[in-house]
């Protein structure tokens, strides 16, 4: 990165910054609207302009969204559903990452006849539209006795996450020389030993990618959540949808927006904190330049 074809003309550079900042504003606009709205009183929302800053800050909508907003007959806010999402996302992310890592390890380092075809088959699975699988999946979950439960949701997310995690890990592990496996074989280590002692410790960047990707996908999922959850297992996105669509008298936009931000906070946080590694790992793992 020492020397790039860098534009040096000052006028041009100003223009450059102008464009970059303009786009930044464009990307920030919806978040800005949500954030400011969530901090305004209803009165101010009705009278003021959408894009104006709050005249008077209020955090009441946040409190309400978290613990007392109503969905249907319940007025518990997002809190219980938030924990549902956590209970669902954490194991689902962990399992799909582990399975993807093992799969990727096999595809990259233990090739066998037909492995490529199978890998292609798994990849194609990444592209299947989820609406298609709702009904047969419901049937299968029923058969397996985990319909309407958090384990059921975890199962679904794991199944449809494997494709991507396998892809990430496989593309990452192919860059590790095969000689490493060979050396370990000569040393007498077996399949799992090699994986746990040698590959897993090497995998931090790609684990980061896999975890971020899966976490965003699973946390943000609505379709599976609404279809496969029972009364006690609805994830936060479903609750958010219920709250936003529940209006008593006047629509509490500020509460809706606060709820939306709360529901999005974990993924947002993950991107802001780990986004750098995400880009880096993604180029290592999924894109070949």
């Amino acid at each position: 990165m020492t020397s790039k074809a860098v534009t040096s003309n000052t006028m041009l550079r100003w223009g450059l910054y102008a464009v970059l900042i303009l786009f930044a504003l464009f990307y920030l606009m919806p978040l800005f609207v949500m954030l400011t709205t969530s901090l305004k009183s209803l009165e101010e929302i009705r009278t003021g302009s959408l894009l104006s800053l709050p005249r008077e800050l209020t955090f009441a909508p946040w409190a309400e969204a978290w613990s007392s907003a109503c969905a249907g007959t319940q007025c518990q806010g997002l809190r219980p559903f938030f924990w549902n999402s956590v209970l669902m996302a954490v194991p689902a992310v962990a399992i799909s990452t582990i399975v993807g890592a093992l799969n990727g390890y096999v595809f990259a380092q233990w090739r066998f006849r037909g492995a490529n075809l199978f890998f292609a088959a798994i990849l194609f699975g990444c592209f299947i539209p989820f609406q298609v699988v709702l009904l047969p999946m419901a049937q299968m979950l029923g058969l397996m006795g985990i319909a309407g439960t958090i384990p059921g949701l975890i199962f679904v997310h794991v199944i449809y996450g494997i494709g991507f995690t396998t892809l990430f890990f496989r593309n990452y592990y192919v860059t590790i020389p095969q000689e490493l496996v060979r050396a370990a074989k000569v040393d007498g280590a077996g399949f799992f030993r090699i994986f746990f002692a040698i590959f897993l410790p090497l995998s931090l960047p790609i684990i980061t990618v896999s975890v971020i990707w899966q976490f965003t996908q699973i946390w943000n999922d609505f379709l599976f959540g609404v279809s496969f959850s029972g009364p006690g297992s609805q994830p936060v996105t479903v609750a958010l949808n219920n709250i936003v669509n529940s209006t008593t008298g006047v629509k509490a936009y500020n509460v809706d927006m606060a709820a939306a931000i709360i529901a999005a906070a974990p993924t947002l946080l993950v991107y802001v904190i780990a986004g750098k590694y995400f880009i880096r790992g993604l180029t290592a793992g999924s894109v070949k330049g």
Partner: protein
Amino acid sequence: MEWLERNVPKLVLAPSFVAILVFVYGFIAWTAWISLTRSRLMPRYEFEGIGQYERLFAAPRWDVAMDNLFIFGGLFIVISMVIGLMLAIFLDQRIRAEGVLRTVYLYPMALSLIVTGTAWKWILNPGLGIQATVRSWGFENFTFDWLIRPEMAIYTIVLAAVWQASGFVMALFLAGLRSVDTEIIRAAQVDGIPTHRIYSAIIIPTMAPIFLSAFIVLAHLAIKAFDLVIALTNGGPGYATDLPATYMYAMAFSRGDLGQAAASAMVMMMVIFAIVVPYLYSELRPRHDK
């Protein structure tokens, strides 16, 4: 024991193999079968023939959905790539605060449209959002009312979709630019090639694989686009912004016309197949490295 040792790799893959076989290909087969029945509210398994496909292709709404897919998909892919590439090139000019800008461009990927849908609706709503705001600044004739014009509404979907995905494309391209050998750029500088030509004639052509990856990611997003439409227009005005995914969903779940939904799903699947298979082929073909 020996056998076990030799077959561990296959055994490790076995659960995934079964899962994919059943939960992807089994379900596709199931859908294919349903598309050949007269299933309505719930699946029925008596074979009927290709009537559902005939109905599908006769439905004006499906035509609109497919047309929209091509308009939306085409614009979304092209614009996202153009913006992504442009931002990547700009960011590549040793920009201060690059890290912050990158995060800002990328964060929409973290958000679901379930979350941002309302905000977008407001922003696009002429009476509340941009139009109203600009008018309140004194530009009385400013109009931005695509959301409510049937022939323009699909472009608002494009706008929101570009908002969500272009940052990601930017990241891909930026990584690509960063991986270009700096010696090539130096060679070009010594050769007297101006900066814009260095990009257009030398760097960008080397990034063909990244274009392909970006195209696939975007195409897949476009075909799957669902939340976006539901959150922004719910298919309206009329069904002007319907896409195959929303058509399928509507048929399956609000119309109780499962057979029809399955037929549309199969057509979608074929479109995906046509795009993804060449990609998979290029991805898995043995590479002859430089």
